[in-house]
């Protein structure tokens, strides 16, 4: 299956290009779209943080705000990817029923297109962090690995959900609801450590442990918790393989069941 995907890597590239192109074409904001959602999310995060600070009688510190910004980007990537990929097969039913090619490129292309957005927003963030002189550390080298885990995890879930939505259209609505409230169950606006002994429960969510690892590496400038990073890596690879297998097994049924 991987080999066939590699054979069609040009198609994957073209579809990713198509998704990016369509998103930015005839859009007044153009590339601002890539940072629009993160900005709104960060604003919401700061508001919540401020509220919590008032309640607990503390001040909000710069590091807290930075931490939210750093975690919001991967989170937006995650939910956007799922939102687009869950629709990717049904939205391209023409291609699914008419032409033969490995269908996995459709959800993967929507995820890559979102990854492109993440890169744009990431560049903006890097510029901002340089301006406020956050500084660098050797632990930044962890970031690519963590992002790879995030990408694998997202791809695995995206493959599963896109195939699921093809058979059952309400998968999409379930996903929307889960994603809408997912932010409360994931340490984006807050840090898992706030919950003391309960923090492990939050980190069981692989996205949670991924976000915390990024936070450690970028903001706290320390080694990510290797146990939880390892856990996230294990989950990501497992979910990716499971998603790929499930997708591959169900692929022959796509055209007649869409």
């Amino acid at each position: 299956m991987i080999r066939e995907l590699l054979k069609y890597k040009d198609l994957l590239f073209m579809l990713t290009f198509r998704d990016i192109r369509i998103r930015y074409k005839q859009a007044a904001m153009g590339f601002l779209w890539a940072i629009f959602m993160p900005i709104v999310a960060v604003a919401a995060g700061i508001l919540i943080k401020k509220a919590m600070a008032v309640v607990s009688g503390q001040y909000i510190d710069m590091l807290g705000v930075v931490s939210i910004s750093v975690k919001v980007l991967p989170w937006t990537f995650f939910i956007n990817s799922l939102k687009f990929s869950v629709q990717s097969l049904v939205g391209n039913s023409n291609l699914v029923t008419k032409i033969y090619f490995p269908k996995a490129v459709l959800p993967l292309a929507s995820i890559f297109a979102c990854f492109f957005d993440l890169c744009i927003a990431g560049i903006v963030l890097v510029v901002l962090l340089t301006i406020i002189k956050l500084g660098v550390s050797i632990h930044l080298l962890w970031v690519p690995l963590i992002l790879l885990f995030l990408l694998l995890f997202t791809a695995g879930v995206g493959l599963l959900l896109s195939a699921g939505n093809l058979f059952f259209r309400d998968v999409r609505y379930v996903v929307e609801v889960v994603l809408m409230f997912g932010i409360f169950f994931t340490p984006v606006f807050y840090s898992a450590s706030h919950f003391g002994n309960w923090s492990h429960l939050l980190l069981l969510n692989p996205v949670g442990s991924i976000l915390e690892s990024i936070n450690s590496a970028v903001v706290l400038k320390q080694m990510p918790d290797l146990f939880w990073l390892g856990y996230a890596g294990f989950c990501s690879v497992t979910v990716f393989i499971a998603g790929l297998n499930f997708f591959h097994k169900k692929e022959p049924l796509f055209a007649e069941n869409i």
Partner: protein
Amino acid sequence: MQNPIEFTNVWKKFRKGEKFNSLRDAIPNLFRKRTAKNVKDITLEDMEFWAVKDVNFNVKKGEVVGVIGPNGAGKSTILKLLSGIIVPNKGSMKVTGRLSALIEVTAGFHPELTGRENVYLNGTILGMKRKEISEKFDEIVEFSGISEFIDTPVKRYSSGMYSRLGFSVAAHVNPDVLLVDEVLAVGDIAFQAKCAEKMRELLRSGVTIVLVSHNIALIENLCSRVILLGRGEVLKEGAPEKVIPYYENLVFQQQENELKQKLKSSDYKVKVTDDLAVDISNVILLGENNEGKDSFCAGENFTVKAEYKTQKKIENPVFALEIIRADGVLCCSSNTKEKSDLGDSIEGKGGFKVNLGKLDLCPGIYAAKVSIWDRDMIHPYVIRKDNIFRIEVSGVKNADGVFLKDMDWQVTGA
């Protein structure tokens, strides 16, 4: 050497009726299925049907095979199976080499993208590499004839430009095996000629082609072998001059049944008196050997014979016969109005017979309409039009029109 296409005992079933594609519907159905399974699962089987039933065929390298058959025969299903979009329930199939399909050539287009972007997109969807497309790009655009608008979003294209660009991309894939489904009728006459030229070029290059079409003339011209499908099964396979007449007769038979149905259900516009003063019965069509039948050879001697019975004496009746083609064209008619030597009145039982001589009508379905009218042919006493007959196709059909004429040709040099 292995055959590029091997299709062995392939079965494919589809489901009729509504499917459950929301979780809300599926969950109760899950239980239903489970309970139903205990008492033998008949409902599910009832909803399924075989779209392709035990189909077998091989295609040799460089061969051009035509697939014909009425709608719903399974032609497109077979193409979908071949291209790998759907998989068989039973049996095996194998396609060796690069496969390309001239089916739905614009399926990969996105309206927001420009022609150029869509060429790349559609090309990669059809399995080309980007490099390959770049090499052929000029050729593709040249072929489509829309180089002027190549950087315009395709949503602004006319439908003709749209399909021309689609065809151009698909035609430049350079496959080993090509599947074609009724797409040669794209664009205007000039472009169609170009398509035909491209097809011939592909034929010469030794590509293996499977061609699905309702255009019998096209199949006859291009294919070396024809497969006739009906209701998912192979009805006949072989040389075009053998299979195509068989298919045409099959179509005529179907038309005949339809015409019979239509004649039964439709009322004739002229009202026939309720109390039948005359009735016609036992209308028989006679062939060469004076035997009653309903299928004739072109050029056969043809006679219509019938009996009548009157309730009272009828003065100066006019007998009439019309031969009507399945599509309603009145091919010929005759009546006894001017034939005074046939007697002035009829009473009681009797019969009449019309000989038409050689039946020089083209193959097809016809109805013989027999009627008896009053003297001035204003009011019919009775009309019988339920006699359908068929003129069989023998050999490849080489005549169209109403009449079958053996014409004498002479061609002289300049």
